[in-house]
């Protein structure tokens, strides 16, 4: 189980509380007088923008570097300290905006960052995290290539519906148990990361966080289902390749290990299955409840945050109907989701200036970067190393500068209709989801799977070993094919 990592520092606690209360108060005062504003970005280039983007760079830099340094690793383990850095970056962004645009710019900015992005985003993630943490699958099957491939196919199939994190956490333990008697299993875990922790989550906004941010920005809930040809082709190629790969590795196993594998069996057993019902509720809520339009078949328009309230209700139902033993078996704690909340509270504020910069300079950038494949590889390259959610948003906003081809109308900003080229949106969606598989840090579940596998005694490749032995040789050729067949 996870424990509190560090002694809490009172000054940091006080500063965090002060920053959070100040931001909340400012937002509250602004909201009380501006109920109908959409907030958002002006199209002019922010003054001294190069200072304005520093907090965004700083928070991404802190996330990348602080866990690696011996001197800061332990300090960074505390969610309070992460929140402190997030608030520092948020306050720096607010200070910059007051200095360059006046205090009246803060309310709309915070409304956009917190009310429209952060709260719906974190509540969806929280709901999926808690509910999927209540499902436990155990068992030990014979680890034949057919069984392993079936595991991966099921994972790739359900990742869109319960999220890549939920699908990964549900399936990784029984997959490891199934393969515990096998010597050659690293490739299975790696392809699991490719398929279940990333590519499988392409089909619905709840599959992967960047797609949900697209949904919050006005992409229709069912739009991502239209990505099924790319999803099916990529998953199909990977599964076929994996089956051949695993068949070769299976023959290398010793007869003794294979014998043990075939005799030490436990049938699959699902516990907490009722949580699939609550996840279905989350999917339906996300798809149907939108405070911007009437509920389908009625005249009733849901009130603001109705969707989030319903999701929280499903969380309560899940907690009420799930035994503690299941959470314990899943090693379930709230630490991971608290970490996401702590960091994204700052990221969403700090990224407002870079988004405004992109809004103002988008036309210049898109003079050279204007093809779907440009967006696919750019979004993907950044998503390989940075969190794919803010990366998606950055390129989503950039794509609005290219009013060419078939367009999709998304949420208006400041009352002005907004459109995104569909070709670019496909490329951005695929790039952010698919290429999250390129490294252990491309997507949260990648690292979780690696950590669980290592704890079960699998010698997983190093950060660069994963890239150079697996993701680059296997995925890059597949992504080139995706580019050729779907994006050119």
């Amino acid at each position, binding site marked *: 189980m996870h424990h509190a990592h560090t002694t809490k520092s009172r000054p940091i606690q006080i500063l965090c509380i002060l920053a959070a209360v100040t931001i909340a108060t400012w937002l509250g005062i602004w909201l009380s007088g501006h109920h109908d504003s959409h907030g958002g970005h002006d199209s002019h280039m922010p003054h001294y923008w190069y200072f304005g983007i520093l907090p965004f760079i700083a928070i991404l830099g802190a996330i990348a570097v602080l*866990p690696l340094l011996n001197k800061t690793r332990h300090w960074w383990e505390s969610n309070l300290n992460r929140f402190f850095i997030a608030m520092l970056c948020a306050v720096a962004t607010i200070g910059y905006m007051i200095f360059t645009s006046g205090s009246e710019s803060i309310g709309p900015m915070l409304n956009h960052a917190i009310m429209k992005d952060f709260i719906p985003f974190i509540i969806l993630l929280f709901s999926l995290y808690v509910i999927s943490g209540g499902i436990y699958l155990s068992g030990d099957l014979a680890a034949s290539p057919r069984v392993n491939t079936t595991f991966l196919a099921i994972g790739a199939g359900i990742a869109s519906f319960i999220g890549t994190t939920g699908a990964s956490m549900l399936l990784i333990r029984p997959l490891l148990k199934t393969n515990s008697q096998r010597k050659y299993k690293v490739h299975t875990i790696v392809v699991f990361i490719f398929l279940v922790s990333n590519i499988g989550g392409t089909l619905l906004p709840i599959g992967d966080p960047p797609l949900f941010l697209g949904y919050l920005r006005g992409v229709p809930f069912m739009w991502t289902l239209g990505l099924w040809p790319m999803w099916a082709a990529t998953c199909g190629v990977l599964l076929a390749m994996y089956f051949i790969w695993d068949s070769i590795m299976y023959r290398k196993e010793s007869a003794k290990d294979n014998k043990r594998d075939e005799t030490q069996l436990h049938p699959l057993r699902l516990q907490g299955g009722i949580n699939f019902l609550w996840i279905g509720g989350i999917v339906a809520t996300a798809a149907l409840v939108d405070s911007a339009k009437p509920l389908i078949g009625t005249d009733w328009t849901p009130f603001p945050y109705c969707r989030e309230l319903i999701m929280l209700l499903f969380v309560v139902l899940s907690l009420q109907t799930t035994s503690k033993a299941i959470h314990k078996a899943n090693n379930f704690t709230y630490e991971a989701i608290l970490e996401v909340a702590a960091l*994204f509270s700052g990221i969403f504020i700090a990224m407002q200036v870079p988004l405004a910069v992109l809004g103002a300079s988008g036309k210049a950038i898109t003079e050279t970067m204007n093809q779907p494949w440009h967006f696919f590889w750019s979004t993907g390259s950044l998503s390989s190393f940075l*969190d794919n959610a803010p990366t998606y948003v950055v390129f989503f906003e950039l794509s609005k500068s290219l009013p060419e081809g078939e367009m999709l109308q998304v949420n208006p900003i400041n009352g002005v209709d907004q459109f995104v080229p569909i070709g670019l949106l496909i490329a951005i969606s695929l790039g952010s989801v698919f290429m999250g598989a390129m490294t*252990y*840090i491309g997507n949260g579940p990648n690292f979780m799977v690696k*950590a669980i596998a290592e704890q079960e005694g699998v010698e997983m490749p190093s950060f660069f070993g994963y890239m150079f032995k697996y993701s680059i040789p296997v995925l890059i050729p597949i992504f080139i094919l995706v580019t050729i067949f779907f994006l050119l």
Partner: protein
Amino acid sequence: MIKRILVALSGTPCTGSAIAHAIELAKTHDAELSGVTVIDPNKLLDVGPIPIGGAAAAHELGEHRMHLAEEHIEEAIGQFETACGNAGVTNRVLRESGDSAEKLLADWRYHDLTIIGLRGLFEYGVLHDHGHLVLDVIGAGLRPLLAVSEEHRPIQRAMVSYDGSPLAARAMKAYCMLDIWKPMPTTVVSFLGQDGDSDTLLADAASYLESHTFSTTKKRIEEKPRNAILRTMEDCDADLLVMGAAKRTRLGRKLLGDTARFALENSTRPIFLHH
């Protein structure tokens, strides 16, 4: 005179063999044994870059690795103390925490001989550095050193790899002068590529060894040492390889071929290193 032997309790498959060799030598020389364990929290807790949302998993993995390492350490210490107790050898355990190479070198200062396992130091079932630490401590000057393989076999015959260089000469002299093993049949081998005349070199080396009462044979191999050293060792039925070693730069190693490195990474029999 060997009075204090330092043996690395590394938690690798070679640890048992290292302990057995150390006990044999301790009994021969009436020496005391120090078993050293090193836990390196910085390395164990370093799980690489972490994505957003992965910190809890990283923390758990770090804790798991620490716990696993501690278990392996206790197991290795138990194995060491039991073996020493059964053999009636005076012993003590040095539990170190910190940088593995630094700690081993700090303890080495007050010991006459260090015994480690080939291809792994202080891994404890967690770290997998594929022998890099062994090369680091050798490069840092940890000599004389006996690096042993997983299979324990009594040392009754030796092979000295000799190219006439000062490094090789120092290793050969240490092998004779330290009296670690009683004089045993020894083959002096020269390989392709050394300076000077092979026959003269071999004759001089054999003469030196014989003056220390080693019965000696000579062998000239017309191949580069990296290609032939381990095969020749098996051909000679040698239980011990004596060689000089110098740490070279990564580039130098690539250009020159680092025979010592190759032998350390691939040998299945003990290697005695000095310079």
